[in-house]
């Protein structure tokens, strides 16, 4: 295991160094570029640790407080899947800088598509919740 760890570490450090060297060529071109690349690099962890993860925690708290037990898992799963689908839809729905029109690309009705997908997710969640709720009551009576 020691050899494997040393191998991983050495290979990883070499690749990191190469990436850093390539990255330096990208950001040293101009201050503006350096700022943009750094913003994209640091933005992810900041946005995640400062916003996404705390929101996940608070939503989880709300679930345990206000949602009856048999419904918690389906609601949690549906919430996670909905959040992922919405996240994936953002680049298609929000175009602050406008893109060139290319026939056949990015020209579907993404708002309706997303709404239908979320509808399917929540119908599945509600159906599962009813089944689990009935099973739960059945277990309680027995």
């Amino acid at each position: 295991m020691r050899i494997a760890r040393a191998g991983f570490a050495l290979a990883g450090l070499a690749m990191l160094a190469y990436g850093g060297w390539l990255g330096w060529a990208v950001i040293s071109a101009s201050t503006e570029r350096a700022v943009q690349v750094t913003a994209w690099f640091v933005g992810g962890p900041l946005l995640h640790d400062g916003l996404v993860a705390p929101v996940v925690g608070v939503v989880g708290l709300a679930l345990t407080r206000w949602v009856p037990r048999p419904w918690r898992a389906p609601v949690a799963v549906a919430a996670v899947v909905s959040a992922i689908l919405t996240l994936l839809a953002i680049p298609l729905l929000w175009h602050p800088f406008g893109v060139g029109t290319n026939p056949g690309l990015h020209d579907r009705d993404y708002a309706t598509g997303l709404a239908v997908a979320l509808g399917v997710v929540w119908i599945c969640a509600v159906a599962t919740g009813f089944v689990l709720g009935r099973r739960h009551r059945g277990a309680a009576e027995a």
Partner: protein
Amino acid sequence: MRRPTHALKASFSAFNVAKASFSALRPPEESDFRSAAHHERVTARVGLWLGIAFAVCFVTGLLSHFIQQPPAWFTWPAEPVNLYRITQGLHVISGVAAIPLLLAKLWSVFPKLFSRPIVRNPLHALERGSILVLSGAAFFELGTGIFNVAQNYLWGFYFPTAHYAVAWVAIGSILVHVAVKLPVIRRGLVRLGAPEEEPAPTRGTLSRRGFLRNTWLASGAAVVATAGATVPLLRDVSPLAWRSNKGPQGVPVNKTARAARVTELATAADFRLEVLTPAGTSRFSLADLTAMRQATAELPIACVEGWSQLATWSGVRIADLLRAAGSEPGVSLYVVSLERKGLYSRSTLPGTHTADPDTLLALRLNGETLALDHGYPCRIIAPSRPGVLQTKWVRRLEVQ
């Protein structure tokens, strides 16, 4: 059957965090998080799949990079014709799948952000720093990738160079992370003797297994929602696929003739294709090209942005054209478009492709004359190549 101690342990973390933080008004501590999602066995499993997704992304991305900027030792085969369509489809699909995996992985280890002391020793500082680099690089790759396939350029830098550089940073820091965590990973992945050791959470939301299943489900949903961009079966299923069927002649267009400013030149009556060989320069009018032996091939347009579309192309084999101009198939060919400025107005067809009978100078697409936006009067279509190298509105071919 209820075991209260286990049930308490499995209770949902946020509940405990909030209770502790609000009552004592202090930041959360690592020990406040007691949800099953934060167990190292969960972290190891999600981490394994995230590692696999990133490895697939890295290898397929590297291939795409080498095809577009081939080093001397690199050759890319012309057969099977769908090879690039598959590798690049895998690149984008594994990237999409990695988004929920990354978020699940980070939620699993989120409590460690609050471990105290912040830094124990220089080595510990290095380890924490390396995790910031790893997470920064991972978010950079997935974030720029998913915006790039939407052609939504929220940056001023050139995407391929930056995405390529940070790919090395990401894969390098993953390897370092694996080296550091290998004992924990092994402990986390080892199968336990007793299969049913985990009770259902009585106060929380999801068990360890439930959290993992939720992660796989979210990843699967993300893939199904987008993979229609390249997987024909999912075309009408994926609501978030970035391509539609509305392109002319059933094929999406990545740059219109208008955007390339070639409309006038491409439709000019005196259009001549020039073929430069060591034997001299030959010129072909559109009528000359139409009069030559025509060949038909079923080939995909496979974009680096992960969408693809199979189509029926017909035109003159590049091999025939080379012979007609006094050269031989198997030479490498520099292709120049009528488009003057664009980044992809030029390309080099390697010898493996000029010798392949499926490599065409296409004049027709799906039974019709090539649409202006697809490269009228003639364009390159070769098997297993990125769409950006299938040069449109071809003006000149130079034997190299």
